[in-house]
């Protein structure tokens, strides 16, 4: 399952770091952040609960940029 979200991220390098960190979250097959369109595309693994995974994703992103906001 693939979904996209709006993500507020300020610096391009942080977006890259977040992208790398998101790949390691359980339940995420693949994640891509488009800095220019502020869009996060997540491919969930079959068994994953998107909401729970996104909670975790939000947390991970905030460790990289404290003000980061994912709208889901």
């Amino acid at each position, binding site marked *: 399952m693939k979904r996209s979200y709006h993500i507020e991220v300020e610096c*391009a*390098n942080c977006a890259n770091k977040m992208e790398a960190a998101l790949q390691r979250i359980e339940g995420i097959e693949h994640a891509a952040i488009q*800095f*220019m369109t502020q869009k996060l595309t997540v491919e969930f693994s079959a068994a994953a609960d998107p909401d729970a995974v996104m909670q975790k994703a939000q947390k991970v992103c905030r460790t990289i940029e404290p003000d980061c906001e994912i709208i889901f």
Partner: protein
Amino acid sequence: MTKKQRNRLYRILVAGAMMLLLLLLPIKGLLRFVLYLIPYLIIGHDILRKAFLGIRNRQMFDENFLMAVATIGALIIGLTRSGDYGEAVAVMLFYQIGELFQSYAVGKSRKSISKLMDIRPDYANIEENGALMQVDPASIAIGTVIVVQPGEKIPLDGIITEGSSALDTAALTGESAPKEVRCEDAVISGCINLSGVLKIRTTKEFEDSTVAKILDLVENASTRKAKSEAFISKFAKYYTPAVCIGAFSLAILPPLFRIVFLHTSALWSEWIYRALTFLVISCPCALVISIPLSFFAAIGGAGKLGILIKGANYLEALSYADTVVLDKTGTLTKGVFVVSEILYHTLPKEQILEYAAYAESASSHPISKSLQQAYGKPIDHNRVHEIREISGMGVMAVVDGCSVAAGNRALMQQLAISYPQESNLGTIVHLAVNGCYAGQILIADQLKPKAKTAVKALRQCGIRTTIMLTGDRKEAAAETAQQLELDAVFSELLPHEKVERVEALLSQQTPKTTLLFVGDGINDAPVLSRADIGIAMGAIGSDAAIEAADVVLMDDDPIKVASAIRISRHCMRIVRQNIIVAIGVKLICLLLGAFGIANMWLAVFADVGVMMLAVLNAIRALYIKPFSEQEELSHA
């Protein structure tokens, strides 16, 4: 400006003014330090906070952390030795100016590019009890009649059932001349209705409509990242830690060396200062931001011209193109067959046409359509019997009791009917009636008026080989190729042979160059996906083509192929400039910093300066002139 940006601007102005004031005031001692702390905290408190959070989250090589270390270090050195606190404030100040500039510029180009692709309809009008109601286009079912008034966007694809008007298709195709439409015409969403009220019966739901397809494509274009983007992410990953290690060694090793080997004073503060200068240059942001910005701008600029590029990786591959393979029919030619001449006829011309039109009346092939069209009268199906299609040759039928054979020379050969010399100019339909040769009909496809300039434009933007593929006859293909001055032509190819031919050409490509295939997207989807880059043209409304191609030209103007290549080369040039200048300036600053020539002022100045230059340069990718016919002719 957003609230965040305005807030940052005020902080920059206040802190900047305070700093200037403090530079002029002759205050000494601890008071001076305390006074300097005020602008420092005003401008840097958020960075300090983020740095603190970064430490807690174990993000050690975070830019905020490094800026905090550098400036706090500078303050301590100031406190213990030089008494110069301005440097720490200045570093924060310039850093924030850079951040503000970057976020403003990125936001601005984000906005201007989304404005370019402003084709999303907000509502659709449906008529209910004589009154118009505005509803969400996504809620409209297929077959609903919608009303589009002058000045409104057509929200869904459909067919006009009432009214006529002119449509502005510029947002989709880049073509500025309005398109006239009438009743029964198919129209696509995203066009703006200019003059009359139109009633349209929808043929697609919103999510399948042209607008939704295009928007989806544009919005997802940056998901596919280019190699240079991957390179920069990798570089950024190693750059910051490397600079930090460099800074650490610079702070420790030279003083130790001085103590142990030179037996002189360590000069700790001097070397620590140099190390802190390193940290100021440690953020790779200029590079990281400018690369996706360049691609985004170029893809946006191309979109404005009706060239949809599906991803930064394709844009990059496009710039390495040196071979362009073009399909003939529909790409270089109009793809409309017209009966141009009737030769060697033993019967009256009208009768030849009549026989041919009747014999071919069951076929939907473009050639038989052109015969029907030239005949111009309705077909009475009772007059024709026993239609047999002979694959790859033509048809045989009984028309008005006479046996009629219409087809290519292979058919004549099979029937052992001798035929005169064929002309080279187009497709020939031979006709035999009751076993006797009756004449030949010459059917020609016409070259697009811009085809020749398009090929020239390709040469001009550095394409070395232009090759045409076609299922057409050898003679006709050679004629076209000669007219257009193409380098090679392969004719009489069946669809799967086109794929094989392209594969053979691909295997001859030198590394680092790419092969483009340009087709009309109707039946060359396999070739489109096999080539390094598949370009589908005239794709407006054709879903299969949009899906199979990497680059979609919204109209069927072949010059746009050259424009697309030009855009890609322009963009890649900018990307390379940014990579070289940004890395170069950083390395020079590191070097100067290590030798104590560059101080922190210079470091932050260069760092922010190069970022601004890179961003401004990246935005340049948005502005690129398309190839125009005039330009080509003047060069010719």
